[in-house]
């Protein structure tokens, strides 16, 4: 396999966007092309989950390649639930690593705010098992809530720990101009004050409003290229060093140990194995905190902390900017927002930005190795990427 480099990145604001889905995908691609100075690509992968269902637009890649006037380059839409973004990057990696293509553009986009929040939650719930989960009214927040209750019983995680993740990530988003949430929050306001239950009602007990990511529109892009191309461009060299993916049972109740996320563990092991690196080498990470509990559990399953001790590292401030291993300094899904198909690409955007030392106020100083974890389904399809800065 050839080495693969991340040469260009681009992103939109994550918020409510009033322009069409194809443009939400194309705009960050224009930024990424400008970023690396390329004007032609061999292939495009467009990550999107809801185009067909929410926006009445299928075969999105065909629209995107044409609006960018990049025809006749090949183009495909990649749908892998909320892990579509990292899956599309994985496809781009394979295309360059195999030698089939030299430059591949991967863009992810979602326009979820076309419908109301309840309809969005319902659309995302269609990824659950139709007869054993969906039919009962199961939503992703409810699966996360049932998982949280088990984690609380077994490992001593409390609502306060969840609130600490919410405060850390939502306040981190204040340093990210592209992040959806631009409103500071405090533990007092969302947990301790007499108004907390009004400010922060239950969505699915024990998860509250501020434990859940917002529903956002947005797009993000990353351009992957061979070493030969990357060395000709005037950008810092960031290599996509490891790519790992693993799956778990479709139905959550079938998992042997209901507090394990084996697909997270497996995806990270594979990515570290390919990169020849270990969790201890990572300087900055973007984890899939669609719900606050997930940041805690994923930080354990990828190998940063022993099982059941993620919340202890959080308490010690190890995962905040300035800590030993900053997690979600972009704001994460919680603060930046979660346009499902774009999220995996936005995570990669942040890591490349960090490894180039271009992240300004939220820069993790001296970051050389970064990890992204994109979590599809309720942990049934997970993609992990490891990036490394080179000279």
């Amino acid at each position: 396999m050839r080495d693969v480099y991340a040469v260009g990145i681009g992103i939109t604001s994550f918020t409510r966007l009033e322009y069409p889905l194809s443009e939400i995908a194309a705009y960050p691609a224009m930024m990424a092309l400008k970023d690396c100075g390329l004007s032609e690509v061999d292939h495009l992968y467009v990550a999107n989950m809801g185009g067909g269902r929410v926006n009445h637009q299928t075969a999105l890649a065909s629209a995107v390649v044409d609006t960018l006037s990049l025809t006749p380059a090949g183009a495909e839409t990649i749908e892998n639930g909320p892990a579509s973004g990292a899956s599309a990057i994985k496809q781009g990696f394979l295309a360059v690593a195999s030698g089939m293509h030299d430059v591949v553009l991967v863009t992810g986009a979602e326009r979820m705010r076309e419908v109301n929040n309840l309809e969005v939650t319902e659309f995302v719930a269609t990824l659950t098992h139709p007869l054993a989960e969906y039919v009962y009214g199961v939503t992703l927040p409810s699966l996360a809530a049932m998982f949280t209750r088990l984690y609380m019983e077994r490992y001593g995680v409390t609502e306060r720990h969840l609130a600490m993740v919410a405060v850390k990530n939502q306040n981190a988003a204040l340093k990210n101009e592209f992040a959806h949430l631009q409103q500071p929050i405090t533990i007092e306001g969302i947990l301790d004050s007499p108004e907390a239950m009004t400010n922060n009602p239950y969505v699915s007990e024990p998860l509250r409003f501020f434990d859940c990511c917002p529903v956002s529109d947005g797009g993000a892009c990353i351009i992957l290229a061979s070493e030969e191309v990357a060395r000709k461009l005037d950008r810092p060299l960031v290599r996509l060093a490891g790519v790992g993916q693993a799956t778990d049972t479709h139905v959550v109740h079938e998992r042997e140990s209901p507090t394990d996320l084996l697909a997270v563990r497996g995806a990270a092991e594979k990515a570290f194995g390919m990169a020849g690196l270990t969790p201890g080498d990572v300087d900055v990470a973007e984890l899939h905190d669609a719900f606050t509990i997930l940041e805690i559990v994923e930080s354990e399953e990828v190998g940063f902390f022993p099982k059941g001790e993620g919340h202890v590292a959080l308490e010690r401030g190890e995962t905040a900017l300035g800590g030993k291993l900053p997690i979600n300094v972009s704001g994460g899904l919680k603060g930046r927002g979660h346009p499902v198909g774009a999220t995996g690409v936005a995570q990669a955007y942040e890591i490349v930005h960090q490894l180039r030392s271009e992240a300004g106020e939220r820069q993790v100083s001296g970051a050389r190795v970064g990890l992204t974890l994109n979590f599809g389904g309720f942990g049934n399809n997970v993609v992990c990427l490891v990036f490394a800065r080179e000279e």
Partner: protein
Amino acid sequence: MEIYAYKCKRCGHLHYPYRMVCRNCGENEHNEFDPVPLPREGKLLTFTVLHSLPPDFEVPTLGLAIVELTNGLRVTGQMRIDAPAAGMAVRGEVELVRTEGYDERFGMVFYPA
């Protein structure tokens, strides 16, 4: 009315819900399973009260649970229990759980045993 688990004809492993290939022995002859009704008795493994419901539910909140049945299988279902607690003994009934347009969907609803 019953909800069925699927017992592999080769190794006896039970699955719920249906799958096409046995998770235990990997036997890939299609439909080589015997349907076995799910037991009704079990205990609450975990649960939630959902306050933000899919738009077609016309109730203020919805109880959802994962229950460990007496034969070791787990099942996700609705829960109508006022004071749920982990480990609590429950009993399931097959009832109407969702109406989608003119289609009525039935599933497992758990009550205190």
